[in-house]
């Protein structure tokens, strides 16, 4: 059992996933990668991560579906999710928040910024549970 916080990254583009994983591992997280929605959802159920980074457009199950599934499951409901997408349209951002995401990033993005948001979100949650 590792002390490191676990982050599941759901992203179908390997170049983005690799970079995000590198940065997060460097920052001290354990990173699990799901390259489609279904795999990501399985990983979430298995590992009960501290945070999920979800790409909206993924094959098999898209980001919103994964969010919905997380919301329906009692053990996964509390896990915070950051959505990442190529779209910056208002409706999508709203939909993401409606479905339970805690944050939203638009591509092109900054890895440093993403890492900062991850840190803030996990930190906030730890504070909440203390």
């Amino acid at each position, binding site marked *: 059992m590792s002390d490191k916080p676990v982050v599941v990254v759901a992203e179908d583009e390997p170049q983005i996933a690799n970079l995000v994983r590198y940065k997060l591992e460097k920052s001290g997280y354990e990173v699990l990668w799901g390259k489609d929605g*279904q795999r990501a959802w399985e990983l979430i159920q298995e590992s009960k991560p501290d945070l999920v980074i979800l790409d909206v457009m993924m*094959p*098999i199950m*898209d980001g919103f579906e994964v969010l919905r599934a997380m919301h329906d499951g009692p053990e996964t409901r509390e896990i915070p999710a950051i959505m990442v997408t*190529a*779209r910056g*349209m208002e409706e999508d951002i709203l939909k993401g928040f409606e479905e339970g995401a805690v944050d939203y990033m638009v591509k092109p993005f900054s890895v440093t910024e993403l890492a900062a948001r991850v840190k803030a979100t996990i930190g906030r949650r730890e504070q909440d549970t203390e």
Partner: protein
Amino acid sequence: MNFNSAAGSFIIMVNLVIFFYFAVLNTIYLVLFTAAFIQTKKYSTRRKIVDLYEVFRSPLTPSVSVLIPAYNEEADILEAVKSTLMLHYPHFEVIIINDGSTDRTLELLKERYKLRRITKVVQMNVPCEHIRGVYISTEYENLVVVDKENGGKSDALNAGINVSRHDLVCSIDADSILEPAALLKVARPFIERPFDTVAVGGIVRIVNGCEVVASNVTKVELPRNYWANVQIVEYLRAFLGGRMGWSALRSLLIISGAFGIFDRRVIVEIGGYRRDTVGEDMDLVVRMHRYLREQKRKYRMVFVPDPVCWTEAPQKYTQLGKQRDRWQRGLIESLTGNLRMLFNPRYGIIGLFAMPYFFFFEMIGPAIELLGYAAVVLAVVLGYLNFQFLYLFLALAILYGVIISLIAVYLEGIAYKRYPRLASLLKLSLYSFLENLGYRQLNSWWRSKAYVTYFTRKRKWGKSVRMGYKQVSSYPPPAA
């Protein structure tokens, strides 16, 4: 001149016509392939420098109504709808038209998507059978289900057109498996030239033998079944070479019903899909050409040399025969319904080149081919033909055909590389031979027989049995 030598000359004349036919047909294919190759190269260069996802982000991307006509599709409908809803596209609606199914198609949809009935205002822009009800989903904002009395596929599509309010309509079959980026790919020509483009089609591939997970094709492999393989080669020839080539010559006459996208207003202006034909997809495109040219409007129909859709090919002799019979009848109906376009300069290259080609080589062609084989055999047996001519016949009728099929497989290997394994390419090249030795002749036989069925007026929207690809479904099967 005695009887023998007169008959002899006649038979030799017939044979020369046959040789000429094969020579011209295959040479036309060579020309089409060359045009197709050039266009495909241009398209791949563009693909390298433009991101398809910029189409996705652009707010100018037009809205699309995806129409899925369904008749007794309880086995597949949920999977089909799910995969269609997951298409990568910014603004689209999915309209499923339940064409009076007698099974649980509608019930399954109601349950799964939490449908609610609404009183939708439907303008009968094009004719269709009575619409019993329109439902929307409480879960998915862009899902609409139309329940209507049975009327056939064209009728269902027309109902969908009446209910749709977007600018573009995309008609797909319930068993088409779509690539996630399919709409993006076929919408691009509309965005590039919004005032000209009226119809776009893409490459349809055969899914038999591939691994499919939740309506995504995860592994592309060749099947084991002979019929499926020989059809794959045929599709490569017909789509990669044929359709792409015609499109490059601005003479696209067919956009597959498995996946096609059209300007809705034009379809309404020509009265929608024709309901008394089995070849509604070709008939629509031919009538679009006719109408737009009569109106003297500048327009273009584009074929995107990019795979967008997968479909299942029949794997049994009887099913395949029925399918080819239906296709040929559809072809006959589309052409005979628009005979005035033949050789008519008013219809430009369509009237002067494309329609005559289809008339002679696709409609009458199969009969000529059969006649040809018979005539040659007769001539050799009766001693009117010497061996040089026999070799010539074999070369033109068979070897030339093999060459064309091989080139199609070659184009696939060099431009698309969708079959990653080398062994697949070799297998397909073997089937290039097999396609021309037996399959093609069998096809000619089926297509010639179609005349009989055409004249005995059998018009039914036939259903084929599902089989052929390994489906790893993420859905539990409907409770019996």
